[in-house]
């Protein structure tokens, strides 16, 4: 296609690339995916119509947009709603491109069907090296790139919500184009019916108008013929100057049902009727062990108990009520097979981590960044600084514990569960039920928190196994104790730094080695800081616990490590931590604006009461840049965070209130962990069990939070769900140092004041 010759206003580079990728996908994937794949027989979207648009008078315009007889437009969203609000925001993006007013928009979760895999989300996860035989995809294959990703994503069952990706990938590269394509198809249908040129038709508030002839029609009246139109080859998306809904704080669509008890979460789901029974389970407490024996005589005699099952890797009780199942489970005596880590505790584990780092030394391990000559520059440095930091394992502690309702009968399986990976969970259920994935129906529910915890399918698999064994529908609920002890944890880590300063206090080198391979790989890197000689390495260790993605993933630990060490360098240089970072960010103008923005918000340098301190940190994650300043009151027996100022550049805030809410949420989640949270190991098993020994920040110790937004790159969106978190811990620890001179090098902070 030509280079946007007849388009006004001019299209952005991002938009041009996106459309090309998208059109390529449609052609190469055989019309298997998303936008613009018109509804016709033999097409996968035809199969989708009865599933997503089976209502009277409903027309599926393309696979992400349906229009009802009532002129309500439904965005069919291939992401899960777990609180991040992204489903509402990406519907907002679609509606703006379609010229639909917000009141006429509804949001619907896409069914767990491979055709709804978000290739745009998948490509963020399916990195270089994943495509068979094409380790480094290059530009000549760009048109086929998304098509390939579609196939790869399907294989990986990658209907994923994570990586702060929904708005910046599916929204920006999918929903906007879906909306623009749907609008053009509606216009084409009206032009055909009215016999007028398409260019003379305007659209507003879900209405088509031809001014010259005075004709007008609601979208609903043109929806059916629109769905017969050809896919637009290059649907024109809006320039920022044409945005009506994008960039506004449109109210979230999911909030009304969350104030009256009607929102259906996984734990609330299940079949109609009274056959449902309840299961409580306890899995083996040490990774790698199996159930050796169970003594059940007491449990069998308890009220309501129907079945007691030794599943090998866990023990289950099925009863008439969940409470009865839980009571009986507690009366079972279980022994477990031995493992090699039965004697392991946290102290020994950290000693093992330290040994791995000793082995890597100053230059060993796996190199993640290596430019200049870090060792040489350190040898010549006027001022040498060394520090070691440590962080613990962390549990996600979603408010809704893991649970799954499953019903296996007649060669079919129905599943109700909150999951960030519906297709992977579907496969887990199929495996557990002994069925094909196509025989499993996933029912859409809200997630009572995700934060990365619901990226694994094991609890769905457990429920399917139980339902198969029982023969009737089972609602399996993990106790809070089970949820705390059987997580996929944020990895514990130790990180060692050496840094050198010249005589003027300028950083000349940065040498870091830490444990654990990082996801995302950029997490420990510091290329935005003006440091000429850098070495970043990892020394891999074995984790005695299952590890997983925890909100902001490896940025959660490296934000603390990197920004604490920068603070230590500033102190060694005798410089103000804000001014010190300003000079380090001289070549990173977006970072610099965010840093200066937060300093202005917090009146950096202004007077504070006696015993109070301010700390600053800046972290780039998921393509967003966030700087935070924490104010801490050290006059009590432990630190109290009074205020957090946050400045964020996420490229462009599609929904500014939603972005602010995510910053507030990430800050509290990060501060909870920094201040209180620690999962420790004793005899190979997790020691913590519930909120009394795994403390959450609460109303009375949560700080006031102020958020300001910079729209620094409207065509290069960043994420929102995670980037607020990483600066919180270092900002707090640096504030404690500013107030007291006490440097916090291990988390949680509360341990230093107990």
């Amino acid at each position, binding site marked *: 296609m030509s280079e946007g010759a007849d388009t006004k206003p001019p299209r952005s580079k991002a938009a041009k690339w996106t459309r090309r990728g998208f059109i390529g996908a449609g052609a190469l994937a055989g019309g298997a995916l998303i936008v613009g794949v018109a509804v016709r027989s033999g097409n996968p979207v035809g199969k989708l119509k009865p599933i997503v648009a089976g209502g009277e008078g409903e027309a599926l315009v393309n696979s992400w947009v349906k229009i009802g007889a009532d002129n309500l437009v439904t965005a069919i969203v291939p992401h899960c709603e777990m*609180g991040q609000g992204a489903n509402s925001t990406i519907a907002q993006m679609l509606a703006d491109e379609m010229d639909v007013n917000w009141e006429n928009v509804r949001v619907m979760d896409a069914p767990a069907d491979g055709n709804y895999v978000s290739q745009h989300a998948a490509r963020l996860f399916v990195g270089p090296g994943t495509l068979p035989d094409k380790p480094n995809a290059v530009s000549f294959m760009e048109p086929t790139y998304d098509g390939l990703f579609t196939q790869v994503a399907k294989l990986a069952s990658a209907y994923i919500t994570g990586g702060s990706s929904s708005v910046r990938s599916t929204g920006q590269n999918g929903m906007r184009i879906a909306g623009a394509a749907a609008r053009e198809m509606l216009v084409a249908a009206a032009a055909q019916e009215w016999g007028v040129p398409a260019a003379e038709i305007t659209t507003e508030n879900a209405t088509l108008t031809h001014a010259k002839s005075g004709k007008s029609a609601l979208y609903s009246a043109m929806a059916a013929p629109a769905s017969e139109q050809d896919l637009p080859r290059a649907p024109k998306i809006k320039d920022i100057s044409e945005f009506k809904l994008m*960039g506004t*704080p449109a*109210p*979230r669509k999911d*909030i*009304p*049902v*969350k*104030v*009256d*008890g*009607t929102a*259906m*979460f996984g*734990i609330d789901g299940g079949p109609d009727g009274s056959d449902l029974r*309840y299961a409580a389970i306890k899995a083996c407490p040490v990774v790698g062990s199996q159930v050796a024996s169970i003594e059940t005589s007491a449990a069998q005699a308890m009220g309501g108990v129907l079945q007691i099952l030794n599943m090998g890797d866990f023990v289950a009780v099925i009863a008439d*009520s*969940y*409470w009865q199942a839980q009571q009986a489970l507690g009366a079972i005596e279980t022994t477990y097979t031995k493992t090699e880590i039965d004697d392991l505790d946290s102290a020994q584990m950290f000693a093992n981590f330290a040994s791995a780092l000793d082995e890597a030394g100053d230059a060993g391990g796996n190199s993640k960044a290596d430019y200049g000559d870090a060792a040489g520059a350190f040898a010549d440095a006027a001022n040498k600084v060394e520090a070691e930091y440590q962080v613990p394992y962390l549990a996600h502690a*979603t*408010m*809704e514990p893991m649970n799954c309702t499953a019903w296996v009968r007649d060669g079919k399986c129905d599943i109700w569960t909150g999951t960030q990976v519906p297709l992977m969970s579907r496969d887990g259920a199929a495996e557990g039920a002994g069925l094909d994935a196509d025989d499993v129906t996933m029912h859409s529910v*809200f997630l*009572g*928190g*995700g*934060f990365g915890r619901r990226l694994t399918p094991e609890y769905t698999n457990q429920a399917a196994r139980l339902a198969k064994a029982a023969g009737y529908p089972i609602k399996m*609920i993990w106790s*809070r104790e089970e949820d705390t002890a059987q997580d996929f944890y944020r990895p514990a880590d130790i990180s060692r730094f050496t840094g050198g300063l010249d005589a003027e206090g300028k950083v000349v080198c940065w040498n870091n080695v830490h444990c654990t391979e990082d996801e995302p790989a950029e997490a420990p890197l510091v290329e935005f800081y003006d440091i000429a000689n850098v070495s970043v390495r990892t020394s891999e260790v074995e984790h005695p616990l299952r590890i997983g993605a925890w909100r902001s993933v490896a940025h959660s630990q490296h934000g603390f490590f990197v920004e604490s060490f920068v603070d230590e360098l500033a102190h060694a240089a005798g410089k103000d931590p804000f001014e010190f970072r300003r000079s380090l960010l001289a070549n*990173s*103008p*977006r970072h610099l604006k965010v840093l200066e923005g937060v300093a202005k918000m917090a009146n950096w340098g202004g007077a504070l009461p006696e015993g109070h301190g301010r700390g600053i940190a800046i972290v780039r994650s998921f393509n967003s840049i966030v700087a935070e300043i924490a104010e801490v009151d050290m006059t009590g027996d432990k630190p109290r965070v009074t205020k957090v100022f946050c400045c964020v550049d996420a*490229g*462009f*805030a599609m929904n500014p*209130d939603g972005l602010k*809410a995510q910053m*507030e*949420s990430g*800050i*509290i*989640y990060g501060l909870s962990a920094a201040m209180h949270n620690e999962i420790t190991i004793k005899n190979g098993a997790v020691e913590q069990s*519930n*909120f*009394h020994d795994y403390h*959450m*920040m*609460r*109303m*009375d110790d*949560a700080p*006031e*939070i102020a958020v300001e*937004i*910079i729209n*620094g*790159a*409207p*065509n290069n969106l960043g994420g929102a769900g995670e980037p607020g978190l990483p600066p919180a811990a270092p900002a707090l620890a640096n504030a404690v140092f500013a107030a007291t001179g006490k440097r916090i090098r291990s988390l949680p902070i509360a341990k230093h004041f107990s």
Partner: protein
Amino acid sequence: MVSIRVNGKPQEIDADPAMPILWVVREKLAMTGTKFGCGIAQCGACTVHLDGQPIRSCSTPISAAEGKAITTIEGIAADDGTLTNVQQAWISEQVPQCGYCQSGQIMSATALLRETPQPTDEQINAYMKGNVCRCGMYGRIRQAIKVAAGMEPASGEAPAEQASVEEAAT
């Protein structure tokens, strides 16, 4: 049999008297707005009112409700469906994220405002600290309580935010 009233309706409950109110309401009465969070009265997700007083239903046996009135999140709106001031403020301030804790938050806030119609920040902190919000919406909850109390105006559908737009610099 335990005789109780739930959201104004008499109910005869055939259950072990030790069974917590939470599971009676969820499983026997099919009202799922009240949530299980911890089981040991640590998180507040299961908060309901027993004769008007907020209780943790996960740790209160149904026998304790004999002859008493239980109110759940499903029972606070007016009969015609009109939401309470607290519920409306939860919408105007865009409080819920995942939403799982919010039934309990709203039940606690409702009881707070009944006891203390114009609460100070300290009173809000003291009353609401038993309700954990893992999405961290404490600032919005506090604001919504003040809006519900008529102490602050509702945000409603605020006009579009003005954020500076600058060209990508990197």
